[in-house]
């Protein structure tokens, strides 16, 4: 917790400074609303805000989970078959360069308005880090260790579960952290075009010049990102504590 102390002090100081300047009439709350105004806005729009918050949060978590399952499974398949890897991986890299904002309208046409489009958009952007880092992890397994498993006559499946996956665990987890931020971005991009959640709250508030609501939504998104990282940290702690990869 100590590591967050400098940031906490800075944020608190800025929040208080804006509040004070605002009271003295030296601040334009139309540009950046002070914390008290944002707080009031959230209270006034409680129902709409929290329902949007939970929608976005739920879809972010679902997308991240789906990205993990898909990206991880793809990486395992790639590592077992070089031909499939060389066929698909370059495509993944190519699609990685296409901005999600440009793809999202297409997804609406294909999948319609609804959560499926939002999840597709989020998975589209957040799958790559997991896929790529798992692949790197699997590739960096010490060659001698692989031979050791060969000498002691371990099956391919045993080698996968007891050597390759635990050996690339830190890579997989690093990819997951990157993906968790991207999943939120993908959900918001999806919500811009497909509607619903904090994404469309931002979109409608923008057209109504409701800066305070936009800021409320931004804070909501930040909280979702934090919750995801916290969940990942807890999972990480449990895995390193209970070590499910024992042979």
């Amino acid at each position: 917790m100590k590591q967050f102390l400098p940031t906490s002090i800075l944020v608190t100081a800025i929040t208080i400074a804006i509040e004070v300047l605002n009271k003295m009439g030296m601040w334009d709350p139309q540009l950046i609303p002070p914390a008290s105004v944002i707080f009031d806005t959230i209270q006034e729009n409680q129902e709409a805000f929290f329902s949007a918050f939970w929608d976005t949060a739920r879809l972010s978590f679902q997308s991240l989970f789906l990205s993990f399952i898909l990206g991880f499974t793809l990486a395992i398949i790639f590592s077992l078959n070089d031909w499939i890897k060389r066929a698909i991986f370059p495509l993944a890299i190519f699609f990685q360069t296409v901005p999600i904002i440009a793809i999202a309208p297409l997804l609406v046409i294909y999948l319609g308005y609804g959560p499926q489009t939002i999840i597709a958009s989020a998975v589209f952007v957040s799958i790559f880090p997991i896929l790529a880092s798992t692949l790197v992890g699997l590739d960096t397994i010490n060659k001698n260790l692989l031979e050791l498993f060969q000498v002691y006559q371990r099956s391919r499946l045993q080698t996968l579960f007891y050597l390759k996956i635990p050996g690339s665990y830190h890579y997989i987890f690093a990819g997951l952290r990157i993906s968790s931020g991207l999943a939120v971005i993908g959900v918001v991009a999806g919500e811009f075009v497909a509607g619903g959640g904090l994404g469309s709250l931002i979109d409608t508030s923008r057209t109504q010049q409701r800066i305070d609501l936009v800021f409320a939504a931004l804070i909501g998104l930040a909280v979702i990102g934090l919750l995801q990282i916290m969940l990942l940290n807890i999972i990480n702690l449990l895995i390193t504590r209970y070590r499910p990869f024992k042979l």
Partner: protein
Amino acid sequence: MLELKNAGKKFDSRWLFKNLNFQTQTGDFISILGPSGCGKSTLLRILAELDTLSEGSLTQPANTNPGFVFQESCLLPWLTVSENVGIGISSKTISLSEKQEQVQSILKTVKLKESGGLFPHQLSGGMKMRVSIARALINNKSVLFMDEPFAALDDFIRFELQEELLDYWKQHKMTVFFVTHSVNESVFLSQKLWLFPQGNQQEFKELDLQKKDFHPQQYRQSPEYFRLVTDISDRLRGRA
């Protein structure tokens, strides 16, 4: 028991070695001696069936139960010492309690009885190598392949481990293939040497040291040891 006939190995079009003809008996302690880069590790990996010959043949007895020790200790960092050692048991028919018993007993042999619960990052280099050796010895291995296992250790620990390995071999008489680039080490440990071609010696040589039975600690000070080291060093430089 094991036989190499006209064995040769090439990478791309470069021959690493050719016309290798060796035979071993069960229970031999063989050092494979040669300078860095001459192909010792490759030969050892071929004997352990981790690589294949480019020409010639290798015949091995069926159902060997091999152990392998690499130059680095090669432990899995997420497993404890006991769990790492357990990897060496390839048999699927063994019960968990039997497995734990074997692990305990081999840890005692390599003087790590108290360290079973530690993780590799908590061990010194010498201890890591002991774990690696325990993993190779467990379950009464019939063949042991060792690739310069002590090269990275300091002299005190190297001498200690050499002596313990020799003691263990005298008791169990498993076949050992020991790769090294050190003449002293090969003379101290083994019964037979396989010399890679070097200097003006073009052919592979097998040398039977015909050692008398010394106690390991005394052997290092014996005149016979010095004579053999000098003799083989000279031979390798082409002076014999």
